[in-house]
């Protein structure tokens, strides 16, 4: 029990601290790396709550794909750090006010009891209790049966996004010769290579036929 409390505090402080460093860091690459740290700590918190599938998916998708994408973009940009950080003090009051308003809204919503933190025991849950089946199986049971069409719809939307991105940025290059690998692999050595005997010191040109 004490270990869990310590781990929770370590992970929670890590998440919040990494989040703060994302915006406070001077170097955008450092910001993205702190974001990755925040993802890792959140995955740890998920594991502590018993949602290990979600934790691993978080790492695979966010750290392995989304953060890599961020890093690609941030590293390839031409960033002038000093220019970015200028004007910080000028915007601090407005930013602070917006932040305080959001915090007050969050606190009001949670304190008023409109959101139930405890799962009510008299509501029939669509998934079997977590100690009977694994996390993955419980998710799969619901997601691929009751919500299968929504799942396919989400997949479709992602496919359209991917195709759209390719359509928008694809250029056909006219100055590049494409290779046909099947033709290259199927080349007959007898037609491609010819062995000739040349006497050493012989005069004359290399006959091309």
């Amino acid at each position: 029990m004490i270990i869990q409390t310590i781990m929770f505090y370590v992970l929670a402080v890590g998440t919040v601290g990494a989040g703060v460093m994302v915006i406070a860091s001077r170097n955008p690459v450092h910001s993205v790396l702190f974001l990755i740290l925040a993802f890792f700590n959140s995955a740890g918190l998920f594991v502590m709550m018993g949602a290990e599938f979600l934790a691993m998916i978080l790492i695979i998708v966010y750290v392995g794909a989304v953060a890599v994408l961020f890093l690609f973009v941030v590293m390839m940009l031409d960033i002038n750090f000093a220019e970015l950080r200028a004007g910080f003090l000028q915007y601090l009051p407005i930013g602070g006010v917006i932040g305080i308003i959001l915090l007050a809204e969050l606190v009001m919503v949670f304190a008023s009891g409109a959101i139930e933190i405890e799962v009510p025991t008299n509501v029939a849950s669509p998934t079997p209790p977590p100690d009977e089946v694994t996390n993955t199986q419980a998710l799969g049971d619901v997601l691929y049966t009751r919500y299968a069409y929504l799942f396919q719809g989400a997949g479709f939307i992602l496919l359209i996004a991917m195709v759209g991105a390719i359509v928008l940025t694809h250029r056909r290059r006219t100055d590049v010769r494409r290779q046909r690998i099947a033709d290259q692999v199927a080349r007959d050595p007898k037609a491609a290579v010819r062995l000739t005997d040349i006497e050493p010191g012989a005069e004359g040109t290399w006959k091309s036929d």
Partner: protein
Amino acid sequence: MLACCVIFVAVVPLLPLGLVLAERKVSAHIQDRVGPMRVGPHGILQTLADGVKLIFKEDHIPREGDKFLFVVSPYIIFACSFAVFAAIPFGRSILVSELNIGIFYIMAISSVIVMGVIMAGWASNSKWSLLGAMRSAAQIVSYEIPIGLGILSVVMLAQTLNMQEIVKGQDGIANWLIFRTPFTFIAFFVFFISSIAEVNRTPFDLPEAESELVAGFHTEYSGMRFALFFIAEYANMFAVSAIASTLFLGGWHGIVTRRAITLGGLLGVVIKTLFLVFVMMWIRWTLPRLRVDQLMNLCWKYFIPISFFNILGVGIWGLIFPKDSRLSIIISIAAIILGLIFTFGVLGKSLSKGPKPPPSSAERRVSATT
């Protein structure tokens, strides 16, 4: 479990050292020479000598680079390459932790290796390192997809993500998941080749090839930091082969059903894994390197459609044969053998005829003058 932890921590870091020596000997014999022979009997202690040499090299950190990231990225790659071993079962009771999302954990941890690569390339403050790191990261991230889809086809058959449960269902060679359906047979080869690409081995080692970009993301590293990258690469190779042998080749089960398994299965896993590692080394010293657009082409246009086809096939197979029985395995092995005969016999013969003969000299002279 604690004993297993201690043994793992003690033994697993020594594996890459042996593999480095094995690589040098294997490459030597493939190239018709003998390899290192001076240090120790038949050169066995060569890796030790290499390690001592690397420790004594100057530790140079690029001046304008990001010092913290430069120092930390080898640690990340090293740690993640070794963290994968925690979920691989090496025997009936020889595994560090039996995670019920074992294979997912492995995929997650291998995704973090990309982070280390990009950090290494960026922190070196060198054009070549950055380009090499980007190429390497793009390659690793692309080839994770066929790996994940290959794992998916195995998990669909085994009905569990738990590595130990996956192995327990592969009692005897006829029950190996590679022979369970003809689609997992294809999936094994796609998985294995994608794993070779994932660990940046030839023929996919453009990011770290000597003639390209000096040495890619680990150009600026010297001494023990480079040794960490090197060891991590071989550990990654071993880990990926161990995963392939666990998922597809029966893990710690033997060839005969319910036979007494030597050393709790350790010998079986090690033999299968070392065989796959040897195949990786063999491929490295036999095949030429792929260009980066060729390897991207291979992944996105060939491996991913084949992997999707595999998943579809495994799904349909699961509908036709809900429970794996002798009949389904016999049909699957027959389909595999027929498929191999068709591919190598019929298709191979027709492909080796070639497209068309090259134009004769008369035609060439005519076309050159017009």
